[in-house]
């Protein structure tokens, strides 16, 4: 299981996607917590990349939980009509890890 805290910027987003998938592959991680508490905006582009990362990780056999999405970011995602429907979320890192453990069956 790995947890990452990131600062998402446009030019780092794609890089982040590649790095994360590489790391999942290397470590054989079954679960990933991505902490977004330092990300102050998510536009439709970054949301797309995040959604893709979750799907791609899933293909590699790792479940992703997003944590620490800020209130303002959540409001704007809903304003934009972006649902991130099939992505799990948790309040913080600790709860994210708990959720992963639960989802992965203990």
């Amino acid at each position, binding site marked *: 299981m790995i947890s990452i805290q990131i600062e998402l910027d446009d*030019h780092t987003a794609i890089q982040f996607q590649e790095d994360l998938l590489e790391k999942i592959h290397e470590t054989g991680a079954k679960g990933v917590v991505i902490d977004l508490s330092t990300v102050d905006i998510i*536009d*439709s582009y970054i949301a797309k990349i995040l959604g893709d990362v979750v799907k791609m990780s899933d293909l590699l056999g790792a479940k992703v939980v997003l944590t620490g999405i800020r209130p*303002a*970011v959540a*409001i*704007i995602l809903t*304003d934009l*009509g*972006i649902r991130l429907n099939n992505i799990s979320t948790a309040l913080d890192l600790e709860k994210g890890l708990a959720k992963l453990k639960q989802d992965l069956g203990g």
Partner: protein
Amino acid sequence: MIMETRSSVPINNEWDIVQARQLGRQISREMGFGHVDQARITTAISELARNIYLYANNGEITIEPIVNLGKKGLKITSRDKGPGIKDIRLVMQDGYTTSGGLGAGLPGVKRLMDIFKIDSTLEKGTNIVAIKWLR
């Protein structure tokens, strides 16, 4: 409308998107927008700047405080000389995309801001004006 200071950021590459965004954040903060509205403005600028970068390659984002009938607001103008938009109704639909994105860009900007006007001519370019009023 009374114009105050205006700031423009040319959009030529991805770094400029970040710069336009930071400027929007700074100006909206100085004007006294709440932090959620600051984020709305910043996100709208991000979407508009990215559209310029993706579809027109170059263009310009202008950010200016405005006053209209005693109401204060922030006006964002996005200008490019790109290919233009063939069917505006279509791009304003949720989920419509030609770039593989989420198709939430322009309709999203409309929802984030209070006023949204789009004006586009094929082969000539696109002008978008979006305003957020200070509450």
